[in-house]
């Protein structure tokens, strides 16, 4: 922290090494496209670098970074237009492409249909492994609101994925 405040760029490298992947993953879950997720992730570390003096508690660094990420991602999400899925968005190296695309396409559709705020709660709870209380603090919402959002998100994902699964089975039967 002291090295960051002193403007030590090697400290920035270490910060990126520690939190870069997680920040990018949370950003992607919210904005749902690679290019915007890259921008949000980079902007998160730029903001952290420029405003490190405002962070009083060093042990809250990770939560602070995720708070910045969520805020920037939600802002970006509010401005973006929904893009159609591209192969690059769907490909997962080292997995069966056909199965992965069907599952991931369904998951992507289901996640995209969630309101932005709910998506942020999902990203922080399931991707960053924050507890409900931590998610509430990060997003500036009450514990009950976050619990309700996660419950409704899960229900929506369950229904969406069940529908998609049934549609896939029907398509296979027709073929």
């Amino acid at each position: 922290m002291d090295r960051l405040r002193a403007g030590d760029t090697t400290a920035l490298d270490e910060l990126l090494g520690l939190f870069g992947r997680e920040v990018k993953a949370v950003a992607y879950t919210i904005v749902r496209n690679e290019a915007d997720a890259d921008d949000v992730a980079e902007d998160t570390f730029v903001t952290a670098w420029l405003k490190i003096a405002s962070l009083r508690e060093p042990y809250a660094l990770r939560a602070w970074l995720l708070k910045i990420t969520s805020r920037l991602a939600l802002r970006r999400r509010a401005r973006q237009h929904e893009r159609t899925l591209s192969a690059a968005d769907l490909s997962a190296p080292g997995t069966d492409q056909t199965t992965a695309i069907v599952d991931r396409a369904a998951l992507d559709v289901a996640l995209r249909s969630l309101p932005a705020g709910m998506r942020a709660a999902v990203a922080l709870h399931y991707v960053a492994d924050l507890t409900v209380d931590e998610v509430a603090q990060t997003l500036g919402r009450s514990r009950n609101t976050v619990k309700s959002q996660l419950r409704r998100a899960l229900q929506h994902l369950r229904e969406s994925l069940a529908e998609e699964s049934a549609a896939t089975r029907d398509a296979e039967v027709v073929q």
Partner: protein
Amino acid sequence: MREDPFEERIREAIRSDAFSHDSPPTAERVQLRIQSATRSTRRWRAVWSLVSTAAIVLIAIGALAILRPSNGAPSGSEVAVRTQAPFSDSETPPPCPAGELRGQLVADEVEGVIILEESGLRRAVIWPHGYVARLNAGGLELLDERGQVVAHEGDQIVIGGGESGEGPDPPWLACGRLDVVEASSE
């Protein structure tokens, strides 16, 4: 509380999806953005500093203009009064009539200031060019073309000049003397 099986599967699927895009931000790109943001911030700070300084100067000039009218006359809001047109350098002003109007200087909603004659007649006045009336906390003041206070509301004054036209109660065309014969007690 343990997650149900579906929630566990969803968590795995979301995490797998999120972390499959394995291109975290690089130090090089972040540092480039930091440099760009710092340059932009400096530029905006310089512009803002210039704008705010200019605004403060303009406000100060405006405040001075309001608070200090010409020739150091007291501050206040100007009250519109009728005045005569100025004479150009080539024109010879007509001789001032030898008449006198006596009465009390009082405020008037329409004329700004009028003379209340002893008979009760409210006489409008066409003041010499450059005269203005000002309303201060202390009341109405009449200022001459040099910005000097020549009379206050309530003063008994004598004005030289003459009636400006035919008909009942024509306005008084003021010229020549203007003397306060009895100052207002207020």
